[in-house]
């Protein structure tokens, strides 16, 4: 992949005028990350779903364009889409348990996916699975491989999905609130796994409401509110000196303890 280019993307419900996403444009190249940041209902998840072609035509009106290496993603036929998603583009959802089969061990599921998407033989596949699990920050590779999804914690499953994206060599990884349910330590380990993914040349589209996670990941941030863009820029610069009131509130709420409360009581 060279680049994901989204321009003037608008999404609205068919029966309501109010746009859910209003003329959003951004560009994401290989080895880069882009963060869509905002509260629930700000349009960040809707943007992801539009890019992945998951918005039903009967309910949503989508305009603008989203192209992956020049190929238009919006309104792509179903058959075509299956060839791209799962191979070139990987998705890490907020609730990762639903993305895996609960009755099959992690090792088998990863092996099947690799078998489907690559021409590696069994030994090569096993080696690649172990290597990618390690890279995603899961050190007990044997235990993870032999576990079924419900035997692992949410944070570990997140990283299994990242490992899966690593092993298939996905070029674009779209992550929807992957760190929301995690504590700081796990959150950072998960974000770090995305950083390694990026270092291998993948592009990361990261959706979150947590400025702290965004800052750790780095890259360009688009702060969104009610479907419109509030502020954009390098995440560390925006964090250090936010311009808009709304962004300031988000930064403050993401680092409450650094604020002045203990001084004022």
């Amino acid at each position, binding site marked *: 992949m060279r680049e994901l280019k989204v321009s003037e993307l608008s999404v609205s419900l068919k029966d309501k005028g109010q746009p859910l996403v209003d003329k959003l444009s951004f560009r994401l190249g290989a080895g880069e990350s882009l963060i869509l940041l905002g*509260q*629930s209902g700000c349009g960040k998840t809707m943007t992801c779903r539009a890019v992945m072609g998951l918005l039903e035509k009967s309910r949503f009106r989508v305009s603008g364009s989203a192209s992956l290496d020049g190929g238009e993603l919006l309104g792509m036929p179903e058959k075509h889409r299956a060839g791209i998603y799962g191979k070139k583009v990987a998705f890490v959802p907020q609730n990762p348990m639903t993305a895996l089969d609960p009755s099959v061990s992690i090792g088998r599921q990863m092996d099947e996916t690799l078998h489907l998407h690559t021409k590696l033989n069994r030994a090569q596949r096993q080696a690649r699975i172990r290597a990618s699990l390690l890279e995603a920050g899961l050190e007990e590779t044997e235990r993870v491989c032999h576990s079924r999804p419900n035997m692992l*914690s*949410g944070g570990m499953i997140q990283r299994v999905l990242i490992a899966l994206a690593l092993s298939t060599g996905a070029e674009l990884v779209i992550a929807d609130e992957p760190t*929301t*349910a*995690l*504590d*700081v*330590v*796990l*959150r*950072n380990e998960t974000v770090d796994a995305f950083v390694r993914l990026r270092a291998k040349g993948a592009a990361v589209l990261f959706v979150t*409401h*947590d*400025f*702290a*996670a965004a*800052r*750790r990941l780095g890259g360009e941030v688009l702060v969104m509110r009610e479907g419109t863009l509030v502020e954009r820029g390098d995440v560390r610069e925006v964090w250090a000196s936010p311009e808009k009131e709304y962004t300031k*509130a*988000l930064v*403050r*709420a*993401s*680092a*409450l*303890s*650094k*604020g002045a*409360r*203990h*001084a004022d009581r």
Partner: protein
Amino acid sequence: MLIAEHVTKTYRNGKSETTAVKDASLSLIPGELTVLVGQSGCGKTTLSRILAGIIPPTSGSVLLDGQSVVPPARRKNRRLNAEIQVVLQDAGSALDPHFSVYRSIAEPIRNLLRLSKAEEKARVTSLMERLRLPSALADRRPGELSGGQLKRVCIARALATAPRYLIFDEATSGLDVLVKESILDLIRELHRETGAATLMITHDMDAALYMADRIAVMLRGEIVENRPYTGDPGCLEHPWSRRLVEQMEPYA
């Protein structure tokens, strides 16, 4: 005071045994807001449920002003029930889907206090006002409320019997940052107003440092650190506590 002393909880599953809480001691003191922080699965929820008298400890004791708090006692004793209240983690499932907001808030009043209909109504109305729940919501069901509103209804319910001990289990997990801030501020205000001994359980170190008068850190079932907190994260000494602080973006 609500005091848990040397509490251990072991779950037996066939032949294997897991110790969720190991020799933990914790006191809830009126006027003090204690935060118990730890990773998911560290046993903090189990400890809070033992403190609240929902589940019995395997060994150790929980005493409220010298009186033992264990499940049979809690279930039979109205006063005990009214004095210790818990706000459960998942507000969406902690409310009966068939109950209106009014009925949910009124339920503990009806069960635990002997008030007339008019007194009950006055109390629910003032609670809703206090928690900034518009009165138009009174007839709504949980399915029609936002995450922040659901949380407020749960808090109103817990406050309905004017408890002296309040336990919040992951009060803000799953909420947006701005909603989280407003709920935390609300808990702080309520704590100041009522003076109730408050225990907040969280995996969110940032929220912990924002709220705590006293901070207790839990690791694999044990309380590894328990000290008053005055606003300087540097006062935490245990390596695990230090690690939790260092992992936070603003302190990195």
